């Protein structure tokens, strides 16, 4: 029977219904309509792309175009003390963001110092020690919950914590750091966890087989291998929180002078500065004031500060991606 089949393939079809395949051929008009539909979707998708690009490009373009107007060395190196209305300061500028840059750096640095070690060690626990137990599942779930905390709620938390523990009216930069670290922590845990997971198990085994303890295997082999990815993840996490505004308004407040002390007194930050200047909108110029008094200066300062902020975020993003790419540990796998 088998032999028959191979000799005459048609034999197996004996008795099967005769098919007129021409019936199934798509009609010419149907093919054309499919083609039209394909073309229409192509146009629609490209159109969606173009339409969506308009506002996005506009955001970038207006920030750059309006921002460069006031962005200069003077703007970067002075704070807002001695700025009266729209009049120029003795230094020749119209006030600046020096104090806000210091505040942003210190507060974000504080958040880094809190959340990176905790987040990293938590990831180490999840990947190296927990082996997917009940506790690990709970922690993973709670990290997810945490990543959904709205930034304003993080601000409320830090504010409540400091008023309850230290007393009412305690406004300082560190409270801002606490709020930001709460927002940063889940990102750090998640990205570090991913990076630790992709370190091949072979390397751990190789290290154990050399008689190396678990702690040294983790610190010197696993973390070392995952380092570029972890650093990149942390930088991206910083870039995410460095522009947070709402929690800082509630915790660190706003002042016009430079405050270097993270733990005492109000602290200005770049995003809050942008918001403050935006809310001010216009500066007073006496009718007698000359042309050097600029009534729209708050808006211009706001744009310039926004540009500084965007630049910081973009640079951080660039560095983050570069670190991941350049220092990636080459492995055959």
């Amino acid at each position, binding site marked *: 029977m088998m032999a028959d089949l191979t000799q005459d393939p048609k034999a197996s079809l004996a008795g099967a219904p005769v098919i007129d395949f021409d019936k199934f051929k798509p009609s010419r008009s149907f093919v054309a309509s499919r083609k039209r539909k394909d073309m229409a979707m192509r146009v629609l998708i490209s159109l969606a792309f173009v339409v969506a690009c308009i506002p996005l490009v506009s955001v970038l373009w207006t920030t750059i175009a309006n921002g460069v107007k006031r962005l200069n060395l003077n703007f970067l190196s002075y704070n807002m003390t001695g700025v009266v209305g729209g009049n120029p300061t003795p230094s020749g500028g119209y006030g600046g963001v020096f104090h806000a840059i210091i505040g942003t750096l210190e507060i974000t640095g504080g958040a880094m110092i809190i959340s990176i070690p905790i987040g990293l060690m938590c990831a180490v626990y999840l990947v190296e020690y927990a082996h997917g137990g009940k506790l690990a599942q709970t922690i993973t779930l709670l990290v997810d919950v945490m990543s959904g905390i709205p930034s304003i709620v993080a601000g409320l938390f830090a504010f409540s914590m400091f008023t309850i523990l230290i007393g009412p009216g305690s406004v300082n930069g560190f409270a801002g750091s606490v709020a930001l670290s709460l927002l940063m922590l889940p990102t750090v845990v998640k990205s570090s966890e991913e990076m630790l997971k992709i370190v091949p198990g072979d390397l751990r085994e*190789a*290290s154990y*087989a050399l008689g190396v303890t678990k702690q040294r295997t983790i610190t010197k*082999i696993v973390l070392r*291998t995952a380092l570029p990815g972890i650093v990149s993840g942390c930088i991206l996490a910083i870039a995410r929180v460095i522009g947070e505004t709402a929690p800082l308004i509630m915790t660190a407040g706003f002042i016009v002078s430079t405050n270097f002390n993270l733990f005492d007194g109000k602290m200005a930050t770049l995003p809050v500065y942008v918001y403050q200047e935006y809310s001010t909108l216009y500066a007073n110029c006496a009718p007698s004031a000359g042309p050097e008094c600029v009534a729209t200066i708050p808006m211009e300062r706001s744009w310039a500060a926004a540009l500084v902020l965007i630049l910081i975020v973009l640079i951080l993003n660039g560095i983050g991606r570069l670190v991941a790419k350049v220092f990636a540990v080459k*492995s055959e796998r």
Partner: protein
Amino acid sequence: MGQRIDVNHLNIYYGNFLAVEDVNINIEPNKVTAFIGPSGCGKSTVLRTLDRMHEIIPGAHVKGEVLLEGKNLYDKDVDPVSVRRDVGMVFQRPNPFPTMSIRENVLAGVRLNNRKISKSDADDLVEWALRGANLWNEVKDRLDNPGIGLSGGQQQRLCIARAVAVHPQVLLMDEPCSALDPISTLAVEDLIQELKGDYTIVIVTHNMQQAARIADYTAFFNLKAVGQPGHLEYFADTTTMFNNPQNEEAERYVSGRFG
């Protein structure tokens, strides 16, 4: 010098599952002992109990004893970490540390154990281990290149150099050639022959010709059915195993009728 290993009534469990049943075997010092058998028979598992590497998997434990030169590795006061310094291991796939150079890879065992080592001692140790692994002439001019840049066979010999640099008494090899091409395999097999002067070598292989070529003794592991525990079926010197086995299953296996 190599040390002898005696395994007495060893049962290996993963959680409640008995993976390997009642193994008794005496591994002679300074000889090559090969473990062969069909896949799933537990030969790699037994190998890993000889330096307590199986304990990395949560829930894995053993009953019975493994005596290294008379000292039970599973005594309460024995630290598994120190066992692994006396018993080295080489894995199926070459796994040099990707962040380290060739030189650092060789020194990894010593450095990771937090030993300060002077530059000249380090140089000597690197040369000694790489010569021991037949790799010195190929890499002596590029010791600072990454270990991951070598060919597969060179990487495996680098891993052997890394293992011997800790100066173990016993070397365990888990299918060390299965990921290598024939030429690299030959180089590693030659190396194994040389190394047995200094170490006791236990090698797991799925390649019976390889066992016949390099082993002095051969242990044949088998399992009754899938899901049943594996066991040691037959242990003999290699000539007997492959020419005149006194065991029906072993005879069927070495003549290629199953497995």
